[in-house]
């Protein structure tokens, strides 16, 4: 589904000291499953998500999604794919404060009919926050806000979910619940979870490790071997 070929993302291009956010990234992945992206702060984890989702254009290299090169698409086409095929969960949820919970969930939906509202209600119910549908974001706890963000990300049944540190602001219990929901969704779609906490990606089919903008294949293989050992 995704293929990254020699992707580089460079900041401060043209200045004396350039900064590589991503350096020669190559990998591909299938169309479903949970993929963890780990690494320390500033290693380039979020940059991979932004490049894959078309929010940032790589300085060089290509990002191919379903056979189409995302970085060469027109802005409107990229926006259309993000709206219809991708779902996003950000670290602090980023809900629109003046909208109710259900309206926040419906933000990415084109048609606001009863059908869409029912779908949003089912999702909220599944996430255990249906009773909060009419509340405003500032009335919610961190865990509840993140669930709203998940509902918003899943409302269009996206083929790919990009979750950037989805549990960073949550306690352990809420973090496990959020990851459980994402793992469940990854049965039928591709879910990328960026985190620096390896304990939350136990359900990942693959873990990509990034260090200073480059893939750290040593750690990735080590994690894979450990997991295979655990399964035996």
């Amino acid at each position, binding site marked *: 589904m995704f293929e990254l070929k020699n992707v580089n993302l460079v900041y401060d291009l043209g200045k004396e000291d350039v900064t590589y956010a991503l350096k020669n990234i190559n990998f591909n992945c299938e169309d479903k499953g949970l993929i963890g992206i780990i690494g320390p702060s500033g290693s380039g984890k*979020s940059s991979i998500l*932004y490049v894959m*989702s078309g*929010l*940032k254009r790589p300085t060089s290299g290509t990002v191919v999604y379903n056979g189409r090169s995302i970085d060469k698409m027109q*802005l*409107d086409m990229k*926006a*259309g*794919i*993000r*709206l*219809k095929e*991708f779902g*996003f969960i*950000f*670290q602090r949820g*980023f809900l*629109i*404060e*003046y*909208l109710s919970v259900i*309206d926040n969930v*419906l*933000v*990415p*939906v*084109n*048609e*606001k009919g009863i059908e869409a509202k029912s779908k949003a209600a089912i999702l909220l119910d599944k996430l255990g926050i249906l009773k909060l549908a009419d509340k405003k974001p500032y009335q919610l706890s961190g865990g509840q806000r993140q669930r709203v963000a998940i509902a*918003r990300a899943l409302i269009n049944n996206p083929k790919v979910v990009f979750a*950037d*540190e989805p549990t960073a602001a949550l306690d352990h219990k809420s973090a496990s619940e959020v990851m459980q929901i994402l793992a469940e969704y990854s049965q039928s779609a591709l879910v990328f979870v960026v985190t620096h906490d390896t304990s939350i990606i136990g359900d990942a089919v693959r873990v990509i490790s990034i260090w200073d903008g480059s893939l750290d294949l040593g750690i990735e293989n080590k994690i894979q071997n450990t997991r295979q050992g655990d399964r035996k």
Partner: protein
Amino acid sequence: MKPLSAFAFIKGSIPKLLPMAITVCLAVAVLYFMAMFTQQINTGVEEAGIYPLEKMSLILGDKSGVSKDDINNIGKNISNSKIFVINPIDVTYYNIIGYTSAFIIMSGQKDIEPIMKMQNFKLIEGCLPQKPMEIVLNKKLAENYGFKLGTVIRKNTKGWRIEKDLKVVGIFEGRAVTGMGMEDESILKPRNPYISLLVGSDAGSLQPVNKYIEKNFSGKYQTLTLEAEKNTLNNFNGPINALELFIGLVLICVIGVFLSNITSIQYSLRRKELELLNAIGYTRKYIVKKALKEIAVAAGLGYIVGILLAVALGWGMNICFLSEKGMSFPLFLGGSMFSVLIVPAAIILFSIKAPLKLTKFRDLA
């Protein structure tokens, strides 16, 4: 694409745009009030200068250098009810609003009998004015308003534009629908003391009078024609309008820059919201359109409230101060209302750069 329920974007964001709406409101109110003020000055000048000339044709003075022989010649050679022989230095006029050609001419001369005789007015009731603010009225005019001897026409009498109460002491018959009185010298508003002859209206019946005066006297005495008076008025209006335009432009630029900064700050506070919409798949064009809509709603509301504020202020001033002086702000000026639209338009133009700048995705960390 409709990501948000109807007007949710606007509903939620209007409070954030309140400073903009208030500033637009104040700017519009100031500009529209200035327009009303200028209009009032123009009207005042017109009434003082143009209107008497249009209606009366000729005022000339026996104290203004015009010889008695010439006055007699004029009297003999022209027959028109609207010729008055008064010293123009000593007269003021009170308008009777809504009654064509009707003036109360107030003279500083103590004896107005010669003037009455010259006009061929015949006193049929009462006496001639002996004291300031006493008047004699044309019979038709008195009948029309139901005024009798002893009636006091107060300054708030409907349809009259006067500054002091007038007492009716006599009724006369004559062709002119007007009245005469004796003015309190302390409130006389002298006209140009060098004017000897005022040549008035081009209206059909008065043309012979004007032609006669111009032909026989324009070389001999300084005359003031209606055209010259209009030129004076235009010369007066020009600087006023230019000043108004200048203040308006400065105001718009200052407020524009000020608002542009306010909008930048307001949208900076909402940067995450705009970036979020951009990230989840709404185009910059779409988001900017939404932002433009809410700026337009805020500016539009400011405009409407600003006009209402200026009208309310003008109305209040009319009621409290101006009406008793025989003046009033014109409250509804279609052209000015349209011109003042430049404020919300400029504000929208100045303000749009902020959302344009902020919809570019940076980093939603």
